[in-house]
């Protein structure tokens, strides 16, 4: 479990992270989204015991990040992918991973096996003996991810894992993260990529120095908007709008020439009634579904913008 209470970090007169309260259960994938300078990287650095909190508490696996002895134990349990890969350019891919495997005390007989498995999974086994300085950005990012995983950590902190990658490399990384999610690892992802956050994360926190909102993508959408059914028809008449508006469980209706947007309390209860009412008014229903509000809508709303 990752837990923070009133976690705060200031640099001089600037507050980077203000009174952050988080609770991420084991096995959860948590997405931390927010604009540049929102304090996401500072939070990860505090959780990885790289910088100390100014005030507040933070625990990883029940261990206090502020205690130097416990910080050492925490560092043994986490894998970190920083914003920049930070590889040793002159050394080979294999040597880079082997160095970290040794620092993390991976037994000698497991090191070669694990490195090979990671490099094969990330499609870099054939390039294992090449200096990573010659690698493309995507390949370097993959090596950095492999480095974060070489000791099979319980907690994985990933800062912008798909940033700057071409679509193919981003897909490989995303699929790999989905595999890790299935393995039940606790993953903390800092990202600007809302699509990634929506696809990968069980829970999302929106950060702008302080935590603005936290929950599953659906829960976050529910904070601002009710549920809306979308009905596509051959054509919409005023009588159809009136009939739907009169139904129990309907809180609002918007219409254009061929679509009805119906705000409902519970689509499972109300949708059959909507369908019957429209048919009774001579409507030819082409489709009926639910309008999905994406994380992007939530993010824009929280950041004070409009669409």
């Amino acid at each position, binding site marked *: 479990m990752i837990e923070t209470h009133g976690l705060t970090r200031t*640099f001089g007169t600037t507050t980077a992270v203000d009174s952050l309260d988080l609770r991420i259960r084991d096995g959860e994938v948590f997405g931390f989204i927010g604009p540049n300078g929102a304090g996401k990287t500072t939070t990860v*650095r505090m959780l*990885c*015991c*790289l*910088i*100390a909190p100014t005030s507040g508490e933070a625990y990883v696996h029940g261990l206090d990040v502020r205690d130097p002895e416990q910080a*050492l*134990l925490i*560092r*043994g349990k*986490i894998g*970190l*992918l*920083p914003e*920049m*890969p*930070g*590889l*040793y*350019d*002159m*050394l080979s891919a294999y*040597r880079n991973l082997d*160095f*970290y495997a*040794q*620092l*993390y*005390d991976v037994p000698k007989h497991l090191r070669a096996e694990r490195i090979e498995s990671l490099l094969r999974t990330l499609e870099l086994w054939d390039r294992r003996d090449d*200096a990573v300085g010659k690698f493309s950005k995507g390949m370097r990012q993959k090596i*950095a991810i492999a*480095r*974060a995983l070489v000791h099979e950590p319980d907690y994985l902190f990933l800062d912008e894992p798909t940033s700057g990658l071409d679509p193919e490399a981003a897909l490989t990384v995303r699929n790999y993260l989905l595999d890790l999610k299935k393995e039940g690892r606790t993953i903390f992802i800092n990202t600007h990529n809302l699509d990634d956050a929506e696809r990968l994360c069980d829970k999302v926190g929106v950060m702008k120095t302080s935590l603005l909102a936290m929950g599953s993508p659906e829960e976050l959408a529910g904070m601002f908007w009710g549920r809306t059914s979308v009905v596509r028809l051959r054509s919409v008449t005023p009588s159809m709008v009136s009939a739907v508006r009169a139904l129990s469980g309907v809180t609002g209706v918007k219409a254009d020439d061929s679509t009805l947007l119906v705000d409902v309390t519970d689509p499972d209860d109300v949708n059959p009634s909507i369908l019957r009412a429209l048919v009774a008014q001579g409507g030819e229903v082409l489709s009926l579904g639910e309008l999905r509000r994406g994380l992007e809508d939530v993010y824009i709303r929280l950041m004070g913008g409009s669409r």
Partner: protein
Amino acid sequence: MRLDRVWIVAKKDMAEFRTNKYVMFSLVLMPLLLALVLPIIYLAPFTLLSEPTQLHELDLPDSEPVVGQSFSNTHVSNMVFEDCVFTNVTAEQCRFEKCDIGQSMVRSSFLGNSTFSHGALIQSNVLNITMNSTVASDIRSIGGESESVTFLRQFINFLMLFFILIPAIIPTVIASYSFVGEKLNRSLEPLLATPTTDAELLAGKSLSIFLPCILVTWLTFLPFVLLVNFLVAPVLGFAPLPDLSWLIGVFLLAPLFCVMSIALNVIVSSKVTDVRASQQLGSLVVLPVVMLFVVSLSGLFDLGPLVMLALTALVGLVDVGIAYLTVKTFRREEILVRWK
């Protein structure tokens, strides 16, 4: 502190150095230049141009010596003296051993291990004599401290100081590819996120700088000794190296200066906010060695074995203090947050 982690960090850094042409360049070129090229440039012409010492062909007696007597206001010739004192004497074709000769004129003689003052010494061969207020004309030295010998000794001392300077300078170059390089590569953050302690990290990185520096210094020392001896032995009549002072200097003092240089570079690089400032300030650590150069050349004191041992003890003490300060002042957070 876990020594295996120290060695893992050191091995990785040394593997990186091997592939870094700038580091290899400084590791190879500087010792080559200072320890091998410089002696050849300066000593070889000296050797080639110096003629071997030609002694006067003297017809000296081989009789039993006169021992422990005093002579004054007299003339002596064709005699052998040992432990005698002479005042206001003229002497010719005599052999003097361990004598004290004052206010006298000596011609066509041999003086060994003696003192000559306030007189004239002409067309004679000498060995280890001390002269004071003397008119000396056409004196040939069999050994001991002639002017050329004194010059060579001083110049060899000057060259030897490079063996202390090299391990102090090279760390300023390598350290910039060690601590500062990690930051430039952005590789420090994942490294600091491992369960490696500050002390292990510092020790590993320092070891990776120390080992190549000191190995290069020591490995260059052997050919230097052979080369210098080869070049100056014909002039001096003996091989001047290795002597005890410089054995202490190279094998005790030089490693301690190396440690001092590394530790100071670490402190500087963790305190300043800019990489170039770190490199420039780091290079100031050679100042104590340069001071040693100046003191040595000024002749204020001779760098004999006792002076070398005293210096070694002093630098050792300073090292302990600086090493303590390094661990105390190394702040991983500061490095991450402040370094640009």
